[in-house]
């Protein structure tokens, strides 16, 4: 910029002639006033996201303070807390509790399954194997969400491959015993809470693997060596060295698994019981019931829960692992 100011275009011997006209004027303006260019670049995305997205979020929040007229089914556009009162009915609290429990269990299971994959990929896989592991996580992550659910519908169906496999292994009695249990059981796995749980874990697993792997890759190898030099058993090294250092990664992954489970309404609808989850409640309130205010109030629940969750995660240093 100082160069430009010291040697105005007219006197400086340019290698290419200036293009002149409006284009040249604009180009010069951008060069002299970078803030103007910055503003011009930022304006479209900020306007789009600000109006479409943040605007919609405000519309949502606003709707949750409206109420529905029970007789006419029309939305009453007056400020009220009545909708939030409706939210606190026992049936709705049940839905919230069920969803949060499921989210916690799914997060736990995803962490347990993800850890060995992430650990192997970060510590032992080299060269081509590393690429293979990476694609091995990335492809399922990006594969169609509905197709993944559909695949599990095929697997868990009464006549499907899992029943066939268990029959071959003479383990059908185990499946029947499990299905006869209350809460987790049901007619077949595809209409039981166990089925919902398995599919949730499957679909969100890659979201857990990636941050855990990233966290483990940052652990210097000589820390592990030092630990065993000082006489720690592999178990002790894991508990006292590796696990604490991988924890931010696990917490970062759990943000995804937890939040995604809280908001999902398609998996429990296709594979699961008729007991509702938060997402399903939102969907049916806005759709068949036409009660957008209650649907909006319901969505505020996962936002608040995730707010607390993110606050806790930040304190544990999870954001550095993202």
């Amino acid at each position, binding site marked *: 910029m100082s160069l430009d100011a010291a040697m105005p275009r007219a006197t400086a011997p340019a290698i290419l002639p200036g293009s002149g006209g409006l284009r040249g004027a604009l180009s010069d303006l951008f060069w002299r006033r970078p803030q103007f260019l910055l503003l011009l670049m930022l304006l479209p995305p900020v306007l789009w996201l600000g109006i*479409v*997205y943040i605007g919609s*979020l405000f*519309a*949502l929040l606003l709707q949750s303070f409206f109420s529905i007229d029970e007789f006419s089914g029309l939305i009453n556009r007056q400020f009220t807390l009545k909708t939030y009162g409706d939210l606190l009915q026992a049936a709705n609290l049940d839905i919230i509790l069920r969803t949060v429990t499921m989210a916690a269990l799914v997060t736990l299971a995803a962490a347990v399954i993800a850890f060995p994959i992430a650990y192997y990929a970060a510590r032992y896989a080299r060269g081509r194997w590393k690429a293979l592991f990476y694609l091995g996580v990335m492809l399922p992550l990006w594969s169609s969400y*509905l197709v*993944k659910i*559909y695949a599990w519908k095929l697997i868990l169906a009464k006549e499907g491959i899992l029943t066939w496999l268990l029959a071959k292994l003479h383990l059908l009695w185990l499946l029947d015993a499990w299905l006869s249990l209350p809460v987790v059981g049901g007619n077949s796995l595809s209409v039981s809470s166990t089925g919902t749980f398995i599919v949730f874990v499957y679909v969100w697993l890659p979201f857990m693997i990636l941050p855990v792997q990233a966290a483990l890759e940052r652990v210097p190898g000589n820390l592990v060596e030092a630990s065993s030099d000082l006489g720690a058993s592999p178990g002790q090294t894991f508990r006292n060295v590796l696990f604490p250092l991988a924890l931010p990664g696990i917490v970062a992954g759990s943000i995804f698994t937890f939040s995604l489970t809280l908001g999902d309404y398609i998996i429990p609808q296709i594979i699961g019981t008729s007991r509702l989850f938060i997402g399903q409640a939102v969907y049916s309130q*806005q759709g068949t019931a036409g009660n957008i205010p209650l649907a909006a109030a319901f969505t505020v629940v*996962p936002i608040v829960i995730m707010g607390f969750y993110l606050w806790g995660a930040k304190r544990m240093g999870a954001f550095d692992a993202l």
Partner: protein
Amino acid sequence: MRSDRGPSAPIGLKLAATGGLLFLHLPILLIFVYAFTTEEKSFVWPPPGLTTQWFAVTWNRPDVWQALSLSVRVAAISTAIALVLGTLCAAAVSRTKFFGRETISLLVILPIALPGIITGIALRSAFALAEIPFSFWTIVLGHATFCVVVVYNNAVARFRRTSGSMIEASMDLGADGFQTFRHVVLPNIATALLAGGMLAFALSFDEVIVTTFTAGQQQTVPIWMLEELIRPRQRPVTNVVAMVVVLVTLLPILVAYYLTRDGDQIAGSGK
């Protein structure tokens, strides 16, 4: 022993890692088998016989073609919008430090960080408040919003690796801003944009949660599949469509991976 080969893994870890990867991949492979099954009424395993007739049946289904056409049009336009917005935002954020820079990154990431149902119901209630009827453009509005982040992530990573002195050199040699963009900046970020665009296309093509809130009566491919999942009418056609969807979303991911694999951040790690 070669020094680049580390110690070998304990057997238990190998088994757990392999098992985990199989758990991730086998269900998807199963879809490919079911596309050829002769069984129409149930999901019976093993398939009683194999046939390719369902491909012909699917080919002649107008509803599948309509859904596919809508999905492709929505994905193409959303990707185009996301490419422009994402690149502009990435250029602004990586070029300069300014007040509110962190807020801008957060704003871009938010639509994908919050559960899809929140984005969906938020758009739905905004449409209801503003009394906007559902149309092709309401779907695009939602899709473009969450596609910006994938383009942005790829472009930011590339801008970070591109040296600013190249732009200065171009200017010193007398190129104006537009020439510099056309001949210096664009060739440098082209593959990152292509990768980001591919991922955005795949993301939009596959999106169902937000779409159910913004589509009204229109059917994209995922909505068509969702209907079939809830009320199965023709299972063999669904099997074939599922297989095609896997292939259609897989190819862009592989291409995006190969375009950006030598970079510091590989495309797709931030879905």
